[in-house]
């Protein structure tokens, strides 16, 4: 019959109208600043730099001492929109494995340019740069306020565990493995040196 569809449609909208007052399933709106949904584990916004709170080199502030970044500048080269700027240090500091490494004297990310592609994270051989889930980054200064420096970017490993637990556990495992290997090498080297020293006939004894 003519007009039947209109009545059906009106019934449908009436159902929505009344239903939205009674059924929480219908009204799915989350009123953002007051109500929040927990971020998904795979969420990513902008990169940050991970630092370890243990194994720190003395004489440095905490965040700088544990920084995993060695200023290899791979991420700077790979970054498609070129939003990373790194300046390598002149001197070296001890890393988590006890090896002397360069460190970034300057590490800036312009988040107004960053496109959240995560390529920097994929290419980093030192697990030093990871993606953050923090998205409320609006500022009144659109140039300086959006150019994050090394100190603003550095965040502890615990924070990484908090936002991406399973990824962080995997990374920690990998790092621990590397450290064990490095330690083994060190001990093996020391052992070999000692054996070599022992096997060598004392040269100056006869003199």
């Amino acid at each position, binding site marked *: *019959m*003519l*007009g039947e569809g*209109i009545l059906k*449609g*009106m019934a*449908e*909208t*009436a159902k*929505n*109208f009344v*239903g*939205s*007052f009674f059924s929480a399933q*219908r*009204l*799915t*709106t989350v*009123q953002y600043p007051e109500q929040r949904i927990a971020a998904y584990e795979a969420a990513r916004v902008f990169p940050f730099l991970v630092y370890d709170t243990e194994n720190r080199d003395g004489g440095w502030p905490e965040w700088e001492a544990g920084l995993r970044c060695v200023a290899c500048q791979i991420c700077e080269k790979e970054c498609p929109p070129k939003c990373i700027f790194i300046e390598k240090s002149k001197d070296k500091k001890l890393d988590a494995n006890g090896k002397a490494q360069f460190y970034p004297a300057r590490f800036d990310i312009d988040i107004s340019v960053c496109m959240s592609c995560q390529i920097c994270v994929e290419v980093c051989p030192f697990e030093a740069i990871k993606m953050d889930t923090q998205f409320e980054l609006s500022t009144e200064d659109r140039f300086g306020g959006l150019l994050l420096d090394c100190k603003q970017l550095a965040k502890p490993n615990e924070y990484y565990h908090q936002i991406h637990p399973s990824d962080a556990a995997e990374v920690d495992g990998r790092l621990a493995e590397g450290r064990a290997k490095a330690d083994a090498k060190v001990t093996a080297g020391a052992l070999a040196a000692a054996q070599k020293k022992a096997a060598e006939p004392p040269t100056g004894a006869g003199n």
Partner: protein
Amino acid sequence: MQENLDQIFVLLQHRLMGTLPMALQPLAGVVLGVVAIVCIFPALFALTTVFERKGLARIQNRIGPNRVGPFGLMQPIADGIKSLTKEDIVPLSADAAVHFLAPVVLVVTVFMGFAVLPMGRNMVLVDMDAGLLFYFAMGASTELAVFMAGWSSRNKYSLMGAMRAVAQMISYEVVLLLSSVTVVMIAGSLSLTKIVEAQNHYSWGLPHWFIFTPWGCAGFVMYAIAATAETNRSPFDLPEGESELVAGYHTEYSGFKFALFFLGEYLAMFSISGLGTTLFLGGWSAPLASLSWVPSWIWFFSKLMMSIFVFIWMRGTLPRLRQDQLMNFAWKFILPMCLLNLMVAGLWRFLGDGWLRWVLCSAILVAAYMGMGLNELRRKHIGPRRYRYAE
């Protein structure tokens, strides 16, 4: 007490008039009435905008505006401040005088329509003998304002919107008039107060509203459709279809002039709902004889708000028509039905009391509706569309 409450506004007006010298009293009475109308309906407009947004949101399972004030009720104030502080831009090539006059003419003519609406017992600004005629004369002049706006803006979207609006409003004006004429035929008067009086009596506690007669029911449905088209409301909002014409005839308007157009649209909606209420829904009379103690103006305004709610409900449900569908609907479907309804109303008048006129009139209208509907649907191919160029 009840009597006083019913007549509270009339008594208030007389009290205020009494403070003035005799010579000034008639003038003061008119000014008071005008001031009341000019205050109440824009206030109602402000409330309706926020309720419309909330209602539409609920229809779409959203919450709607709830940030400004409690439950978002201060939203219209924020909107008003925004439109007052916005820059008023007049295009360089526009006809500045006409561009300025268009919104003013629109709002003034729409306000004029309220003058003859009886909003309660003894509550009518000008009790004209030809009230209905005056109302339609004023309603028709809004088309002029719309075309002034479209033409003076010198913009293709404005002009196209205005042309659509004028074509649509003239087509549906015919339907609006013809569906109202049935009421005049039965009530025997063009005066809106007399039309309300004709409906304001009860048998077995039920009212004699015209909507409860076969011709009145059909007339009311056609009146409602024509009223929707006349006020450019969805699904007949082609003149201002945002998706194809930017905003139609008010594309080149900004700031407070735009707000005036917005106000004019809503006021037209109120006044046309008020007229529909008066013609078919018994105006200010109570829906049950036992409820007659409630003040009459409460009934008028609650019926008005119910009609507004139906407007909003339809807006939330129906998609916009195409121009040819709109025209075909007016001239090929509603107009013949309207003419038939005129005959039926005549038949009703001359068959006298008894069950025969109920059966006969209902049968004619239902048969015509079904017949025309079947004819329409048979010719129409309903189903998925195929486009040759897309295969």
